[in-house]
């Protein structure tokens, strides 16, 4: 009987996964064909199957603006979704997300230092030949990496995941304070630059950055799939997991590393994209009533890609010259969704009860 149930749930899972993949492909096409500049759909399709289209600037817009942005949206959505899932399981907390350990605060601090002290650093960077677009990426990367090291050290020392969570929150508070002090002593234009960074942006990556961004995220996603089995064991409770022969400390550090690399890279390149990573795992669990990460992980990856493409399409305000910041859109459309789930499920602890 158990076998039968497993079979039927597997079928349901494959059909949902296939739907998610198809939806992702469809929204991908919609996403690249909509934007401030209206380009007829047949020309968009023509361009992407390799035919040349007459309007040269449209061809450039499609391959240099819309394609990179859509690819970024896909990767950002999957990366944030999967790291949120991992953090929720690791901390057995429905409110955990990719940034719970202070990754985005660390990145934010790095960026704040780079922007507010930018003038002093700028000269050095020009000498070393690092381009401007890499300045913020490197600053955010270094910031989140430092936080990651401290958290990992704490993870080695501590037995308890909740303590780790609190340490992460403390880091967030402390770095936030330093950022506000820096802001206080900064010029208006620098504060504006920082605020714009904190809005998040999917469209500012060009191919030269994507060459680095794509492989890192793909490796992170692959590692996440491989970690699924460990996550399942963790879900049974830490004591139970270690009795199953799982090296708890090593698993915890691997998960933290994986999440930090995914969330840290996303934050470094696109700014902190809030909310998404917290909400998405709940949506996936609700759609497919399972806590099995072997099934959940691929689902979260594709649903993340699909939803981020949808949000980005909304943010583009097709037909208008202006755009909305992606962060506003994810929270604006994501929050009602989560409220809906909460009202429907009444209780989210289901996923963590062993």
């Amino acid at each position: 009987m158990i076998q039968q149930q497993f079979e039927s749930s597997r079928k349901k899972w494959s059909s949902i996964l296939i739907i998610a993949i198809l939806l992702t492909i469809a929204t991908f096409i919609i996403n690249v064909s909509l934007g401030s500049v209206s380009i007829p759909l047949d020309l968009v399709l023509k361009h992407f199957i390799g035919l040349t289209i007459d309007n040269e600037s449209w061809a450039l817009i499609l391959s240099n603006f819309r394609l990179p942005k859509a690819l970024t949206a896909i990767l950002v959505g999957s990366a944030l979704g999967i790291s949120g899932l991992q953090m929720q399981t690791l901390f057995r907390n429905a409110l955990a997300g990719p940034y719970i350990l202070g990754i985005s605060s660390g990145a934010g601090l790095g960026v704040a230092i780079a922007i507010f002290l930018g003038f002093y650093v700028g000269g050095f960077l020009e000498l070393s030949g690092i381009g401007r677009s890499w300045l913020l990426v490197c600053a955010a990367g270094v910031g989140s990496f430092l936080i990651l090291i401290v958290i990992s050290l704490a993870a080695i020392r501590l037995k308890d995941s909740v303590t780790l969570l609190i340490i992460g929150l403390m880091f967030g508070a402390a770095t936030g304070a330093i950022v506000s002090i820096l802001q206080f002593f900064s010029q208006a234009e620098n504060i504006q630059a920082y605020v714009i960074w904190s809005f998040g942006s999917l469209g500012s990556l060009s191919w030269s950055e994507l060459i680095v961004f794509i492989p890192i995220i793909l490796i992170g996603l692959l590692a996440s799939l491989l970690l699924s089995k460990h996550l399942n064991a963790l879900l049974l409770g830490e004591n139970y997991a270690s009795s199953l022969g799982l090296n708890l400390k090593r698993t915890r550090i691997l998960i933290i590393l994986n999440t930090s690399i995914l969330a840290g890279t996303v934050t470094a390149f696109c700014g902190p994209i809030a909310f998404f990573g917290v909400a998405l795992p709940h949506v996936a669990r609700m759609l497919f009533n399972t806590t099995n990460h072997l099934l959940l992980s691929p689902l979260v990856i594709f649903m993340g890609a699909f939803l981020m493409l949808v949000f980005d399409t909304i943010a583009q305000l097709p037909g208008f010259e202006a755009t909305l910041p992606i962060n506003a859109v994810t929270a604006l459309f994501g929050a009602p969704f989560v409220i809906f789930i909460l009202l429907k499920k009444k209780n989210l602890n289901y996923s963590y009860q062993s």
Partner: protein
Amino acid sequence: MNMTKSALLLLLSLWLLACEKKKPSENVDSNAINNHSASKFKISDNQLTVLEPWPGATSPKTYNFKSSPKKVIVTSTTHLPYLEMLGVGDQLVGFPGTSYISSEYFRERVATGEIKDIGNDGNLNIELIIGLQPDLVIAFDMGNESTTLDKIEESGIPVLYNADFLETSALGRAEWIRFFGALFNKQNKADSIFNNIAKSYDSLKTLAKSVSERPTVFSGVVYGDIWFLPGGENSAAAFYKDAGAAYIWESDSTSGWLEVSFESVFDKANDADYWVGISTFNTKEELISQDTRYGEFDAFQQDKIFTYSKRINPTGGYDYFETGYARPDLILADFISIFHPEILPDYDTYYYQKVE
């Protein structure tokens, strides 16, 4: 009963007060000196009226002066050129964020300690200001700094709101030198400086009117996902027009700034002839290292990018943002020599230079 009575009395006295306040300004109107293009201030005998002291202000602010101030504080680098041009720079005793000053004259006075730093911009340090004992603080309020300024006023130091940034025309903004002139008893000097600027602006404009072809132009860079562009009614757009160029967003009716997506700007401006004003970028290499897509613009490939980086001070400040507003004639001349070098063959640009 008693309550209503006193409330009525209060209302009545307020109304009387309001009436009394109105009267003198009506009288003054008759002998007010007319402005050329500025619309936010009014000069009359011993009285300066700022009509819209901050964005969205509903009532004007009036400042009565008996004698010209000996020790002043100004709060924006854009106020500095007026003092220097009028020859009253030695009366400046404090400035917030002295490292942003471009003017050599004022930098020297900062170095010798005659001008004290009174806090970072936006965060005026009240104790330092009071300690300097100025006769007057000339400030600006974008709409949220008023609490600090109110405190300065409470301490007995008069605060004068400079609203030059609310002027919609470049000449209107430059005319604020007359506001400073009235304050420092240098009316004639201020009038003649402004009249010369206005005259040279107008004659340059007439020169550029005769051009047969108007090259297309756009400006700015992208921040995050948003490209900020001056609206069609913005004073920046007026410069392009007066210099004989066709601004791509000319037909737009916004007087502020447009927030446009990168692909939209690329669609409209990728074949534009000129690209002017690229924020804090100083070289083509810097542009391309920020975003390789900048390289796809025709103006980039044909070396037709110009920016206001010719005069940068040792700490990285752009003189353009300090003295530019006071000298619209120089900006216009720069633009004309960029768009139509044949009109001003011997002219050497003041603020702008080609981006290499």
